[in-house]
């Protein structure tokens, strides 16, 4: 064992130890909620920091090889680490560190309401499960950890199980995640049978032996399984329900990293396990990604529930990430490996970025929900005066997720655009058109995302408070603000100085495709494909800030009037200025609702009650303007009815007679013996 | 230089013809549609003249002149008179809205390019690269005839279709023989006149020129 392996092994043990101690501490101190809260989350923090170090070590070239045959049947418990695994461990840790600190303060509100021991246990198990999924090197290890991660997050979603919607969300989550699990199980078994090995690391070499139909079947099954976890449209329906139902620090992790493990799986099947794929695989991923990105942000735009909005925006960001994955797969099948690497770099960059700003936004939303007691944006407003620091952090997150310079989302989207634009190097007209449409989809997504976060920030934080709770809101505790500030600084750092990370990502991508990415970079800028496109994030930021400073100075020199008088908002001389005159979130989204009416199928109802004596006096006006989800109505409605009918039929076999049950077993045994013989 | 410029110019003019077809889709008022048709025909005549000059063909120059006379002057006059006689009509919306129509026509252009690109590649003439454009015009003309409710707009769709076919012949073989072309022109003129009479009939009988109402004629 080399010294680097010792280091990584120690870091892994430290991480798992941290999670283990955290879980144990939380459970042992169950009767002292305060202690349990600290123990659970400090343990998680230590573990996450160790995992961060492990990820960095892995990206720097460290490897890991752990095999404990006795722990699990069929191949045993086996862990390993290549750069891709290390990168995802890093992503997990990046989101977990702020979440854990935030949770220490945030979960205080749950004392006496929910079991903090359960939360501590679930949180640590969730983190450990995710880290081990990324490191798993054996089918059974992978599946067991995948299930552990899913179950732990399910229990965390159910923290506030007393609400009906939470129960529904939990149920939906459980069903879809297990449907996905079933797909994964079948896919893995087919793969293991075809290649003759349960070791994930050997699949790439062995996949050549697979017959074509099996390869396609494995791809489809695994893509469905991982896609369901990633929350791509139309497998996304659980996501906007389950993520908001969980406590905010857990939502941050679920949206920030758990769904990324779906991306991890898709990258593995697209670039590693199945070798170089056929072109329709990449095309399919590209189409699904484009649809997810556009629909995700469209649904986010009309959402009034702040956390739901963020959850839908996760669907959008997964779409953006997968655009890169799909494009990379297509490039690879056309033997443009350097471009494939570029697309993959863009994807991975966006993965990390999303793991920074989405938790930031969820933590901000948590602080707001904590302060106002509601998730409905229509009851917020004016919070920038009451919680200025939270507002500033949330603004940074919003600008970053809207992919605007000089923050990190901009860099990854810029890279993504370049890799898509460079698709003109493929000389197949149909593919070119497909890329043109996905460029349009990405552009539409970025425009809509900007609109969506203008709404999210503007309605939540600006203007006058729309409810009494918002009026009385107060700034979040320092620990929560501190973690948000930390994430905000990370957004800026990753946006202004992408060099270090890019260096690691290009190596990671090169490991998968075998060729260096078609991109050069240094502190002065990033150059894609030999001067095809240039950007200089650092200098843009510097120039922007200096111009910003310059303008007021020049104004003062030329003698501008510096007077400022505060007066009420101009409302055409109206006597009363209340929050009722403000534009609401619903109104803000209305133009989009009309333009994309085909997708939203808005339901409008206007109900006016007149005064009994005169129609000139109105007693009440009720206006309802809701959107319906086509997916739930058109796609899942029939499926669930079908399943229900099937279940009704299947009830016949459940007779209650022990003799009959024994007969079933006996028949099954005989059939199996006959087949085996 | 001329040899280089010529194909570019042909392609550009062909695209203008197609562009006029696109504008016709967007345009709502009948008089504007008729004027657009005149513009399209004029572009076509110019294109024919350019090709005539390049190939030094007197026949083709004659065709260009005849085309200019017939489709830029005569037929628009006839149609404008028809528009004036019918008077103002309540707006009849096409079956598909403008954005949807644009999407469909965009798709038709793509299909036309996809189908005709090999044909264009195998044709040795310098004008060949514009063949897909002409074919796209044919498809769009067809679609306009399907999509519009008014009899007059359908005539315009037909005329556009005819223009595109002429363009196709021009690009692929530098035009069909003079005598054939003249025959076609005559046919078109007669067709337009007959259809005009029909429009008046429909208008008198139904007080509308929406073709849907013809369904009432069923026994």
């Amino acid at each position, binding site marked *: 064992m080399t010294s680097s392996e010792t280091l990584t092994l120690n870091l892994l043990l430290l991480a798992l130890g941290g999670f283990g101690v955290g879980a144990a501490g939380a459970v042992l101190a169950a009767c002292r909620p305060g202690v349990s809260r600290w123990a659970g989350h400090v343990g998680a923090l230590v573990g996450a920091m160790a995992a961060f170090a492990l990820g960095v070590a892995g990206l720097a070239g460290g490897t890991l090889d752990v095999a404990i045959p006795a722990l699990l049947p069929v191949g045993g418990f086996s862990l390993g680490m290549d750069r891709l695994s290390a990168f995802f461990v890093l992503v997990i840790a990046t989101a977990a560190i702020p979440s854990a600190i935030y949770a220490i303060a945030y979960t205080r509100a749950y004392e006496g309401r929910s079991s903090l021991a359960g939360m501590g246990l679930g949180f640590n198990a969730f983190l450990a499960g995710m880290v081990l999924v990324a490191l798993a090197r054996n089918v059974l290890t992978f599946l067991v950890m995948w299930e552990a991660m899913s179950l732990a997050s399910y229990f965390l979603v159910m923290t506030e199980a007393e609400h009906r919607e939470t129960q529904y969300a939990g149920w939906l989550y459980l069903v879809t995640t297990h449907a996905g699990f079933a797909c994964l199980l079948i896919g893995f078994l087919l793969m293991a049978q075809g290649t003759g090995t349960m070791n994930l690391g050997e699949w790439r070499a062995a996949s050549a032996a697979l017959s074509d139909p099996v390869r396609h079947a494995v791809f489809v099954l695994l893509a469905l399984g991982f896609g369901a976890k990633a929350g791509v449209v139309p497998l996304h329906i659980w996501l906007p329900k389950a993520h908001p139902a969980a406590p905010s620090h857990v939502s941050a992790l679920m949206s920030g990293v758990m769904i990324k493990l779906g991306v991890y799986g898709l990258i593995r099947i697209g670039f590693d396990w199945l070798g170089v794929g056929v072109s329709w695989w990449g095309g399919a991923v590209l189409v699904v990604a484009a649809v997810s990105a556009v629909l995700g942000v469209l649904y986010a735009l009309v959402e009034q529930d702040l956390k739901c909005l963020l959850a839908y925006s996760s669907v959008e960001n997964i779409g953006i990430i997968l655009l890169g994955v799909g494009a990379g797969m297509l490039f690879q099948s056309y033997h443009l490996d350097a471009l494939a690497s570029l697309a993959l770099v863009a994807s991975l960059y966006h993965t990390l970025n999303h793991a920074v700003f989405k938790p930031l936004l969820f933590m901000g939303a948590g602080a707001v929900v904590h302060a106002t007691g509601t998730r409905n944006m229509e009851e917020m407003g004016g919070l920038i005066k009451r919680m200025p620091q939270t507002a500033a952090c949330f603004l940074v997150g919003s600008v970053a997720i809207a992919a605007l310079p000089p923050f990190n989302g901009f860099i990854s989207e810029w890279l993504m655009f370049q890799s898509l634009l460079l698709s003109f190097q493929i000389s197949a007209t149909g593919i070119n058109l497909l890329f043109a449409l996905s460029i349009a989809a990405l*552009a539409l997504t970025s425009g809509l995302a900007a609109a969506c976060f203008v709404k999210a920030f503007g309605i939540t934080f600006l203007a006058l408070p729309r409810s009494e709770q918002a009026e009385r809101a107060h700034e979040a505790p320092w620990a929560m603000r501190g973690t948000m500030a930390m994430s905000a600084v990370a957004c800026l750092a990753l946006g202004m100085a992408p060099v270090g990370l890019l260096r690691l990502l290009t190596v990671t991508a090169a490991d998968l495709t075998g060729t260096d990415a078609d991109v050069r970079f240094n502190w002065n800028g990033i150059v894609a494909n030999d001067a095809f496109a240039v950007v200089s994030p650092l200098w843009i930021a510097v120039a922007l800030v200096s111009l910003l400073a310059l303008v007021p100075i020049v104004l003062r020199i030329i003698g501008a009037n510096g007077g400022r008088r505060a007066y009420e908002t101009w409302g055409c001389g109206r006597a009363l200025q209340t929050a009722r005159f403000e534009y609401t979130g619903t109104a803000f989204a209305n133009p989009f609702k009309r333009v994309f009416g085909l997708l939203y199928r808005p339901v409008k109802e206007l109900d006016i009650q007149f005064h009994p004596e005169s129609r000139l006096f109105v007693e009440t006006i009720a206006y309802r303007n809701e959107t319906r989800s086509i997916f739930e109505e058109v796609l899942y409605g029939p499926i669930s009815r079908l399943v229900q009918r099937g279940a009704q039929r299947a009830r016949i076999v459940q007779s209650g007679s022990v003799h009959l049950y024994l007969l079933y077993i006996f028949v099954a045994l005989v059939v199996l013996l006959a087949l085996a013989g | 230089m001329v040899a280089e410029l010529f194909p570019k110019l042909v392609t550009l003019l062909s695209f203008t013809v197609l562009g006029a077809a696109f504008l016709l889709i967007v345009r709502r008022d009948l008089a504007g549609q008729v004027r657009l048709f005149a513009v399209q025909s004029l572009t076509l005549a110019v294109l024919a003249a350019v090709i005539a000059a390049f190939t030094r063909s007197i026949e083709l120059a004659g065709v260009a002149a005849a085309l200019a006379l017939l489709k830029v002057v005569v037929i628009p006059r006839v149609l404008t008179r028809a528009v004036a006689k019918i008077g103002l009509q309540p707006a009849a919306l096409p079956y598909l809205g403008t*954005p949807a129509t644009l999407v469909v026509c965009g798709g038709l252009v793509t299909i036309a390019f996809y189908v005709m690109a090999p044909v264009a590649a195998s044709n040795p003439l310098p004008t060949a690269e514009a063949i897909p454009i002409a074919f796209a015009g044919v498809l769009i003309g067809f679609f306009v005839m399907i999509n519009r409710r008014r009899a007059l707009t359908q005539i315009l769709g037909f005329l556009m279709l005819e223009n595109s076919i002429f363009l196709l012949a021009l690009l692929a073989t530098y035009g069909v023989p003079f005598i054939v072309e003249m025959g076609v022109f005559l046919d078109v003129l007669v067709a337009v006149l007959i259809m005009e009479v029909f429009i008046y009939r429909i208008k008198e009988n139904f007080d509308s020129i929406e073709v849907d109402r013809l369904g009432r004629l069923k026994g």
Partner: protein
Amino acid sequence: MITKIAIETIQLLIVGLGAPLLVGLVRRVKARLQGRRGAGVLQPYADLRKLLAKEAVVSETTSWIFRFTPYLLVATMLLSALLVPLLTTRTPLGFLGNIIVLMYLFLLGTFFLALAGLDAGSAFGGMGSSREMAVAALAEPTVMIAIFAMALRVGNTELDEIVRRGATDSLLLLTPGHLLAFLAFFIVALAETGRLPVDNPATHLELTMIHEAMVLEYSGRYLMLIEWAAGMKLLIFLALLSNLFFPWGVALTVTPAAVAVACVALVLKVGALAVGIAMLETAVAKLRLFRLPALLSGSFALALLAVVSFLFVK
């Protein structure tokens, strides 16, 4: 080094000082077309100077975002002025970013302006923000597809390089895809800069406003900055249109004579486009808000056709 500084300074001066002149020119031509005499072309300078001398009345409801936005808008426009190839194909600060960076800088300004519109808590401001974001979002795909068309044509997305290719290969300008991309980009420019038929810059009716509704709350120096920035945005868009699609006169080498010619050419081209816009604004009416998607989808179709034609008609 000195030439580089000189070029960037000239660019800044052209954009910063030329913007009011451009706005004045458009207004003057429009007035003349309406049978009026109109204010002189220098009127916007007087307006801006007067606004600087006035106090600013700021709503009590607003936060720092309201006051920060005008400065940010001006800063983004000045930064854009530094990286756009106005005069030469060797713009010294061109390395800051390509055309996509430029579009995102504009979007950054729009983002904050929309927030500022919401900040005062007035219904007008919110309405303006919502509409502005809708128009911006729907225009975005056209921009990117037009960029893709250009990438297909010249194999590059660097502004300098696109202009250089256009200037050296004059036959390229005759290709249909080029003109289609120009039309698409032109419609987008109208939408992004709030001109008719998308938005009426001279309207007094709050209910029909887009851009104006967002800035109803601004006064004094803040209003001056916003109007100046709006003028600069118009100028940058027109300069982009003229240099990307009609790169006549752009200096390929950096010599004083060539740069002088480029200056004159730029003034002529932008002036011609401004007169064109004034004529268009006289001839067309503002589109109803919910007819805008038809216009923008039309521009999208044009851009897509440009891509198709570059793919098939080489």
